[in-house]
């Protein structure tokens, strides 16, 4: 079975989620950074959402728009192609990461340039575009502040919206001081760790790159099928720089980013900013349709990317993950993400949405992907905040079934029968035994009585695998008799209370 590449160098040899989280949970700085950042944004998001009285209706409309689009995706993709072409753009189709990277590298080479400026884009992260371009002698400069921090720090992204969320201000200052010189204009002398000064340092460092750039690379938040309009939602202005100053613009966009009509944006432009940065509206939103005479790039390429999306679309429970608009509200509210951090998810898509996207886009063949569906307490906070109502717990449980029991899935466009993942044999046996006991109450009762009779011998901690519980928690004491014995003995409590 071929695994779809979802661009993290080192995949698929990442450790399973629990092992990765084991380290992260003990990293006090990381825990502090994540707690601070996620709690800050949680409260703000709640306020931003509370401002609009029709939030539930907007959420439902968003869900329906996306579901409808996915239902007729073939039609809308063809419509996108026609509209973008008519507006002066060129449309390319990429089945997987490799093909997308090839297309982009060739387009850049054809311009004769050896450097590009990039707008923050999950799709290009996913396909590992920067590494692929590097291999072709093309240097890609990330221009989003958080992406810049990650790139300068030779780090991995840990959040969808704020890939450097795991870094606090003083760590960022240290990275800027030591690394900016390697990539261009060094950090100003005496740079402090105030966010305003750090932002200023990024402005100065990137300005020369923006002004000389001939090729820009972006993703898109939305593509409007009826008009061929692409939309990029951002804050810093780096997006506007990359989208308007270069002569050539290449946008790599997942096929699920399509919406049918211009009017659909009225929903998402209300729900996305409030869900992601907790703003009524983000500072800048750029919309462009093909090319415009004497304003912005004279050449525009749109690369439509599959890379596991059609396989995900084939799963009737899992396909709802394709509604995702990458707002990251689910990460910010997730108690597991807050403790484990984004790196533990072994993917550019961390957090709850990552736990259902990665094992669908890449398959469940690797240790990390087989462990991701279990990286949740199923508390449901993610579903509650999702602006397109993705029932993440439902998909998590569905993927757990795939891992534990095997499934028929689509990989690379073909139907494949998956066997249960390795390492679940003991659990499966235990589940079967429990089911057997629960369908034979006599057995259950015997077990309960045995436990009660031997209760004084029970330890408060367990050896071996039992340590997973008792390493940090006492076991509950076993009562003198189970309830059902008391019920029977006392005639439902009517014959004495003892």
């Amino acid at each position, binding site marked *: 079975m071929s695994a779809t590449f979802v661009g993290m160098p080192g995949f698929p040899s990442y450790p399973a989620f629990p092992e990765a989280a084991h380290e992260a949970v003990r990293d006090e700085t990381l825990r502090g950074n994540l707690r601070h950042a996620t709690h*800050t*944004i949680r409260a703000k998001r709640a306020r931003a959402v509370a401002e*609009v009285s*029709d939030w539930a*209706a907007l959420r439902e*409309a968003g869900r*329906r728009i996306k579901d*409808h689009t996915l*239902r007729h*995706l*073939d039609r809308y*993709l063809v419509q996108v192609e026609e509209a973008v072409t008519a507006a002066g753009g060129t449309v390319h*189709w*990429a*089945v997987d990461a490799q*093909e997308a990277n090839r297309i982009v590298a060739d387009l850049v080479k054809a311009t004769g340039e050896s450097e590009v400026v990039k707008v923050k884009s999950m799709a290009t992260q996913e396909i590992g575009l920067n590494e692929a371009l590097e291999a072709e002698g093309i240097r890609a400069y990330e*221009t989003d*502040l*958080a992406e810049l921090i990650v790139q300068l720090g030779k780090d991995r992204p840990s959040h969808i919206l*704020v890939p450097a969320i795991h870094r*606090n*201000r003083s760590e960022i200052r240290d990275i800027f001081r030591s690394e900016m010189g390697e990539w261009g204009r060094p950090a100003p002398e005496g740079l402090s760790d105030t*966010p305003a000064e750090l*932002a*200023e340092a990024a*402005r100065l460092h*990137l*300005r020369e790159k923006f*002004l000389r750039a001939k090729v820009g690379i972006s993703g898109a938040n939305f593509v*409007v099928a009826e*008009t061929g*309009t692409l939309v990029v939602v951002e*804050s*810093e202005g*780096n997006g*506007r720089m990359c989208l*308007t*100053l270069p002569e050539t613009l290449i946008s790599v966009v997942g*096929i699920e980013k399509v919406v049918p009509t211009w009017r659909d944006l*009225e929903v998402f*432009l*209300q729900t996305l900013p409030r869900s992601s940065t907790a*703003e*009524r*509206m983000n*500072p*800048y939103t*750029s*919309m*462009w349709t093909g090319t*415009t005479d*004497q*304003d*912005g790039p004279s050449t525009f390429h749109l690369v*439509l990317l*599959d890379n596991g999306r*059609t*396989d995900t*679309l*084939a799963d009737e429970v899992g396909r709802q993950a394709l509604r995702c608009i990458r707002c990251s509200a689910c990460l910010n509210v997730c108690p597991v993400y807050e403790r484990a951090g984004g790196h533990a998810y072994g993917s550019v898509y961390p957090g709850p949405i990552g736990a259902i996207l990665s094992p669908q886009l890449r398959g469940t063949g690797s240790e990390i992907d087989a462990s991701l569906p279990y990286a949740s307490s199923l508390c449901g906070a993610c579903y509650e905040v999702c602006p397109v109502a993705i029932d993440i717990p439902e998909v998590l449980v569905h993927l757990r079934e795939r891992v534990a029991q095997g499934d028929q899935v689509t990989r690379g466009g073909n139907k494949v029968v998956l066997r249960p993942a390795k390492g679940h044999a003991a659990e499966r046996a235990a589940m079967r035994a429990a089911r057997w006991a629960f369908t034979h109450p006599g057995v259950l009762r015997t077990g309960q009585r045995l436990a009660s009779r031997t209760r004084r011998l029970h330890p408060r901690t367990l050896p071996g695998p039992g340590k997973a519980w008792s390493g940090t928690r006492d076991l509950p004491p076993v009562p003198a008799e189970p309830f059902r014995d008391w019920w029977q003995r006392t005639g439902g409590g009517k014959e004495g209370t003892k």
Partner: protein
Amino acid sequence: MSSRDRILGRVRRALADVPPDDTPYEQAVSRDYLRHHGDRRVEETVDLLAENLVDYRAVVHRSDAEGLPGLIAHLLGERGSGTVLVPPGLDESWLTETEVTRVPDRPDSTPHELDRVDSVVTGCAVAVAETGTIVLDGSPDQGRRRITLIPDHHICVVRVPDQVVSSVPQALERLVPTRPLTLVSGPSATSDIELDRVEGVHGPRTLEVVLVSGA
């Protein structure tokens, strides 16, 4: 087989289990969300725009048509600007009282040249009160997208109440999708450091919005 055909074929096979659906799009999606939030008189809508612009750190001024040239001259002077970018279709009267050197928006000016200009003055296509957003659509009074991006100081004139709408849905109705559009809500900002918002990154760090009535 081309990748295009392969992807489209995969999409069709992926949806083989889904019952046919010929619902027209207009009926497939319920749009029972609001067209705008709350009922306001026209002046209140303009006030809300001002309030939300200020909330996201834009500087808001009010003026009538008569006072506008003086106000613009004052703002440029206060800033100490030596040069100002001027879109081709900007109302000429707006700059009659300033001495600042005008730089026309030309197709062949390079980004480096634009980087040496201090300020830019433009009109706008529409402004959204609920979100504190101004929208630029490349019309002659707004110019190319890059002239409102590279200079560090942007003065944007909004004609009130004509150019003000309450909500995002109302704003989109007024726009032509195929024009190059930029929605601007306050000066550039970032939340990338500890998810805390700071203003002033790559776009203009000072956004001054002039709400002009009777123009």
